[in-house]
């Protein structure tokens, strides 16, 4: 019996086809993992920003003597801002801008510190100030993100509340 050497054309085509299927599957899976990682990174960044903002806002509000929501005067901050008045002629303004919140600390009228916090893209972000309890509460409300956007905690809307003036006024003559 004559021994067969090599492969037929059909065998080669089938083998190449199977290898192509395997490569395509791996490529699709890798692409999915890459996209998932990118989304994860964006979500984590937004969540960390919200956590940092919540900690800072509460610390500032607790220390504040008063809080008010001045009418928007800047075109770049149409959604309004929160103004906290503190001891020693210090003032902290939180201004809502495009997908971020800017915190500016002023000491006797001059800017002493400025930082920003990233916010999720949302159609509506606003401040509210409610009184009636022993201490007023300021709240930053971020409306739910539109469908198809980032799948972070902002998808269902976010609200950060902070009680104002919990620390109370300092005794006369005591520096903050």
């Amino acid at each position, binding site marked *: 019996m004559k021994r067969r050497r090599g492969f037929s054309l059909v065998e080669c085509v089938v083998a190449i086809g199977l290898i192509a299927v395997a490569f395509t599957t791996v490529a699709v899976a890798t692409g999915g*993992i890459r996209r*998932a990682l990118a989304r994860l990174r964006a979500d984590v960044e937004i*969540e960390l920003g919200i956590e940092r903002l919540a900690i800072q806002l509460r610390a500032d509000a607790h220390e504040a003597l008063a809080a008010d929501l001045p009418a928007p005067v800047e075109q770049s901050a149409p959604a309004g801002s929160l103004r906290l008045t503190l001891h020693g002629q210090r003032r902290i303004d939180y201004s809502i801008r495009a997908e971020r919140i800017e915190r500016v600390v002023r000491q006797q009228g001059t800017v002493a510190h400025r930082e920003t916090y990233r916010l999720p893209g949302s159609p509506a972000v606003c401040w509210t100030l409610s009184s009636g309890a022993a201490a007023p509460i300021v709240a930053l409300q971020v409306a739910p993100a539109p469908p198809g956007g980032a799948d972070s905690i902002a998808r269902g*809307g976010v609200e950060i509340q902070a009680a104002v003036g919990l620390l109370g006024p300092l005794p006369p003559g005591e520096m903050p």
Partner: protein
Amino acid sequence: MALALAMALSVGVAQILTVVANQRHLARQRAAAVLEAGNLMEQIAARPWEQTAPGQSPVSLSEACRQWLPGAELKLEITDEKPDARRIRIEIAWHDPLGQRAAPVCLVGWKFPAKEEGR
């Protein structure tokens, strides 16, 4: 053989992605619960001293929290501590994406009477 390997790889990757998605969802739920617990603590801190007596339930979970955390339950414990302090313990429990009870988020704080409240 190659097809079998490719299928095994696809199944493995799909399982990993599912587990990662579930864990990510759980992490988001936890972040939302931590934020809600912080908000409730702020609400209690802003209340007058007499409205935070032990046994009272001055706060409740928000609607957004209930939507985000299926089966969410709030457990609030207020206990008197000497001298003139109240220990406030907020616990939020909910169901994870697989329908099981997730490990609850707990926040503890202390409230002291304001000086003008005469305590």
